[in-house]
């Protein structure tokens, strides 16, 4: 308990007397988390819609693969991404090894099955009678998918919350791809690792508390949007679906 109290005090001190170092780590963490979640959403939500609502050969295998992807080991993903990004490797030309972009790629790969699998489950649970009625009234496939997504928005936002949480707190892939370079690719999670390795447990706890605070604040904001959309009203104004 002493360590935690000391860490809490140190966390407050770091926040109040930050010389820019903490701000940079925080920025890298948020940058990686937000962009990786957006990339995973842009790719994963359409994939989830396709696997949740489509009827085509191989759909079940696809869903099984997405579900298996929920258990992807971050260290293995990080290793493969790093090997692909090394100079001379297939993606070496991107020059993303030991960069924030490389970390975003690794985190997006880890978050993608999470977003896609949860979206597929959420839209698959939308009442088939509603979707059939939409088709019977001339709705296009795009409109039916839009309707399903809007109806399943609570589940889909849940997937995004989980994806963001994973992207900001994951450490294995981030260290392997980003190199945990102080002042460049260090995130809050990888900074905890560095401090622990250096025996600075107080600082590690302080950074851990800041990371937890970040997750609580961002997760809380997403949850507020999610819960706002659970009623039978038009939903949150920034999440309103306009049929065209």
């Amino acid at each position: 308990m002493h360590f935690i109290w000391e860490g809490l005090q140190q966390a407050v001190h770091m926040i109040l007397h930050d010389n820019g170092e903490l701000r940079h780590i925080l920025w890298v963490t948020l940058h990686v988390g937000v962009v990786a979640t957006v990339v995973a959403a842009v790719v994963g939500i359409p994939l989830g819609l396709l696997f949740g609502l489509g009827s085509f050969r191989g759909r079940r295998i696809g869903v099984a693969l997405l579900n298996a992807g929920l258990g992807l080991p971050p260290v293995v993903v990080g290793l493969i991404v790093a090997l692909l990004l090394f100079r001379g490797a297939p993606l070496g030309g991107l020059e993303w090894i030991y960069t924030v972009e490389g970390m975003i790629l690794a985190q997006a790969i880890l978050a993608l099955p999470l977003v896609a699998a949860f979206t597929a489950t959420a839209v698959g649970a939308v009442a088939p009678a509603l979707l059939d009625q939409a088709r019977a009234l001339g709705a296009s496939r795009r409109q039916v998918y839009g309707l399903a997504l809007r109806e399943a928005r609570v589940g889909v936002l849940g997937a995004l919350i989980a994806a963001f949480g994973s992207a900001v707190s994951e450490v294995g892939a981030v260290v392997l791809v980003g190199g945990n370079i102080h002042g460049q690719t260090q995130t809050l999670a990888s900074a905890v690792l560095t401090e622990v390795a250096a025996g600075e447990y107080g600082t590690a706890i302080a950074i851990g508390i800041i990371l937890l605070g970040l997750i609580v604040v961002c997760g809380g904001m997403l949850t507020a949007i999610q819960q706002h959309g659970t009623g039978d009203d038009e939903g949150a104004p920034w999440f309103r679906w306009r049929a065209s």
Partner: protein
Amino acid sequence: MSAPARPPAGAVAPAPALAVRGLTVRRGRLEVLRGIDLELRRGEVTVLLGPNGAGKSTLFGAVMGSIEPAGGRIEVEGRVAAAAQNAAFARRGVRANVELALAWWGVPRSERPRRAAAALAELGVGGLAERPARVLSGGEARRVHLARVLAVRPDVLLLDEPFAGLDPTARADVLYDLAAVLRDEDRATCVVVHDRAEAWALADRVLVLLAGRIAASGPPAEVLERPPSPAVARFLGFSGEIAIGDEVLMLRPGQVRLDPGGDLGGEVARKIPVEDGVRLELAVAGGRVFAVAPSPGPAVGERVALRAEGGIRFPRAAP
């Protein structure tokens, strides 16, 4: 909406809005629909009657394109909309749900509020426009469901059991309100119902679908009062049958009266209390008939005299 304009005598009938020719649908080796010929004309309400499993929903599915036929042709002049049995709504208000349907149909955004309001008012639910759709009662939900499909103004409208799941009072209310707004000279309408009374209230023409075939087709008075075959008669409530020579006399319970001066004799085989008295199953020479009598009615095993009023006769060999 206005009453349909009837063509003058001798005029050539306009092309049907929907024509189904020789439609066959298979599920595996089973033929669910066999050689269905059907025409729906604008301004006409066709009621489709049939027992569960007769193929009514399959017929609608084939017309909507969600079920692939094994044979035959479906020709549509215009667009088809259908209202499914279950009134499922998006998590929105009533008005928003109707406007959403109009959006799916392709109605310009500027027209949607006016058309949604008009359709809701027509079905008597204009006052519920801002209420969340998922808190509606069964009858309200059914009215909003119907308003939604009427609002899109299709050329062909298919309604699959629009009164399913409603209590008798709500059922009657929705039936009479729907009957008042359903007929439209620009629209051909087909409604699946289970009940003869509903068919009487709605139909210009009645079709009876039995075991995947159209077993009867014609005006309500013709089909419901003079069914063309014993199988159709049985389905339409002619449950009593008496063999008389080479013929079978088929009777509805309302056509059999207990009458001390009656020319038929029978014995009460079963007695079941019903709303209007007791329903009697009576064994008579050559068959069995049903009658409704005031309570308490004769005891089981008691012999009674009967009079048959009306009924319909078929040759005994008829299917």
